[in-house]
Every structure is written in C-alpha cells, then in structure tokens.
C-alpha cells in the first residue's frame, strides 16, 4: 500500500487520503454498510465514510488497532502469520475488519447480517483499490517548518500544563 510509509524511519506519512475517502464512499454505496473507516496499525484514522456522527472514531481506531495487534500475536501462537479478517457480530450492528496490504486496517460497520457476503466482497475490492493508490510524486514535506512547529508546540505545551498551586 502506498499510504502509510515510513520516512527515514522517523515519521509515518499519509499522503493521499482523499483517494481513500472516495474508495470508502464507493464501498458504502455498493455494500449499503453504515460506516467505513481506514485506520493505521498505530490507531490513527486515515479516512472515513458513511455515517460517522454517532461514532467516536478516535477511540474506535485505538481499540481496533490494539485488538488487531493482539490478534496477530494470537495467530503467531497458533502457527499463523496473522488473521487477515476479524468479524464481530452484535445484535443490531456488526463489524468487519480487514488488513489492507499489511499497512492499515479497514473497518466496516453494518446492520444487516444477511449482507455479510456482500460486505466481504466489497471490502475485498476496496482493499485492492486502496493497495493500488499511488504515492504522490512530490509529497508536501516542506509544508511543516520544523523550527517554527517546535517553538509554537512547546509554547502551547507550557500553557496547557501549567503547574497547579499546591
């Protein structure tokens, strides 16, 4: 996947999330799922589509990333490299989680359990498309001026964590 690359081992760059959003929107349209999220293995939301207002996507991303990583360890203990799909079945809502090209996870939330076959098919197609998204030729690495970024961030930190009076 061209998405979540390491740059000199120092940062994770997500260069092309508008494409991801479009792919997720197609997935929602074709599968009639409720929500789709694309998240990094570190638990950060890269893109989302469908209904998202009801959902704390940040918390879901952190939890799903932890769950997927834990499941990978379970897989290793039973002699597998990893389980590429996780399915959580609820009473009204269900979650289909799949690994996308080893770099990210796609979370699809849906309500009609009879559509599980369609969901799996559409998720597989979306994962293939996501894997084909190309890196932009010249990522906008210059948009952050590091000295300024650090100076302002350190100022904000000082203001946010002022010591409390005893």
């Amino acid at each position, binding site marked *: 996947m061209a998405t979540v690359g390491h740059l000199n081992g120092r940062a*994770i760059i997500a260069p092309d999330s508008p494409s991801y959003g479009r792919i997720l929107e197609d997935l929602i349209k074709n599968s009639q799922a409720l929500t789709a999220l694309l998240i990094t293995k*570190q638990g950060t939301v890269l893109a989302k589509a469908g209904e998202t207002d009801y959902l704390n996507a940040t918390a879901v991303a952190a939890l799903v990333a932890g769950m997927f990583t834990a499941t990978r360890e379970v897989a290793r203990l039973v002699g597998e490299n990893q389980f590429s799909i996780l399915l959580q079945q609820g009473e009204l809502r269900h979650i289909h989680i799949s690994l996308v090209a080893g770099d990210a996870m796609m979370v699809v939330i849906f309500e009609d359990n009879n559509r599980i076959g369609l969901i799996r098919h559409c998720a597989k197609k979306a994962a293939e498309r996501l894997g084909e998204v190309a890196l932009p030729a010249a990522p906008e690495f210059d*948009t*952050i001026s590091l000295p300024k970024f650090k100076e302002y961030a350190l100022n*904000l930190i000082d203001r946010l964590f002022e010591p409390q009076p005893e």
Partner: protein
Amino acid sequence: MPYIGFHNKEVSFKIVYYGPGMSGKTTNLVHIHKNLRPDRKGEMVMLDTDEERTLFFDFFPLELGQVEGFSVRFNMYTVPGQSYYEASRKLVLDSADGVVFVADSRAERLQENLDAYKQLLEQLESLGMDPHSFPVVLQYNKRDCGNLIPVGTLESKFNLNGIPVFESVAQTGKGVMETVRKVTQMVVTKFEI
C-alpha cells in the same frame, strides 16, 4: 513514531505510561484528563478487569491545538502493570514516541520497579528503539507513603544519567502535570520529518 497526515492536517504522537502494577499509571491519566478543558480531550477509554486493574490499556486523545496549520494530538496510553501481561505491554509500547515510567515509591515495591524498568529497556530494544536516546521521564509516585525508595535508586541502578525525574502523588495530582509537560516537551523537541 509520529503520524503526519498532510491532507487531514494532523500530527499525532503516542505517549505511554509504563510501570509496575498499581504504581499509579491510570491515576496519572485520569488526573490529566480531569484537568483538561473539554475541547482539549477526547473520551477516555479504560479496559480494566473487575478489580480495576488495567487489562490491555487506558487511552485518551489529548488535543494540543493548531500549530502551523496542523492539529497536534498526543495519544495517551497506559500499559497493564501486572507481570503476566508482558505481551500486552509490548503491543502498547510499539510505535511510542515517549514514555513516562511510573515507579511505586514504597520500599517493598523496589524489586517490581527494577523488574519493570529492565523490561522497558528490553522491550524498547526489541522494538528497534535505542533506550538511551528514547524520551523517557521517570516519576517516583506515592511520595506521601512511608518507608520510601530514595530518588536516585533507579537512576543509579540503570545508569540513567540526565533522565528527568519527578516526585508525585498522583491521587492528589501533585507532580502529574509537571511530568506530562516534560514528556510532551521531549517528544516535540525530538520530532523530525
């Protein structure tokens, strides 16, 4: 390692509170969460057992604000302290940008502190991080208890020259904000693209 989203204009870092069981990692996070303005924090997620021990991790996103057009966030995690959750601790520690080691200052917990710090060093190394240059802040918690481990014990045992050290009572909040301020400063200072 930090995450940079150029299209959604977001930079996020991961801070992990590490330490032996019942040393006060969750209490630190709860205090920070309670004392932040509502617009600076997301919901706190706690995955604990019936005995209120952390089972996998506690988590909340801390929003620093807008910097150079980017939303800057610290994702705050704790690890489970009990020794049998070693595998879970390593999973949470993966891709961390900074660590607060919360030591239990009671003298009878010395060995647990030493074991946990040794494991932190081993896990950082096994995750490909250099424990000597990695941002770590040492917090001696529970300084209101009797029979305390002297500050300097872990530093001399593990040759932690220059490591920032704070004494705290997380239950009352003493030393908590100073600790989080230091670790976030260190993480931002070390940030590179």
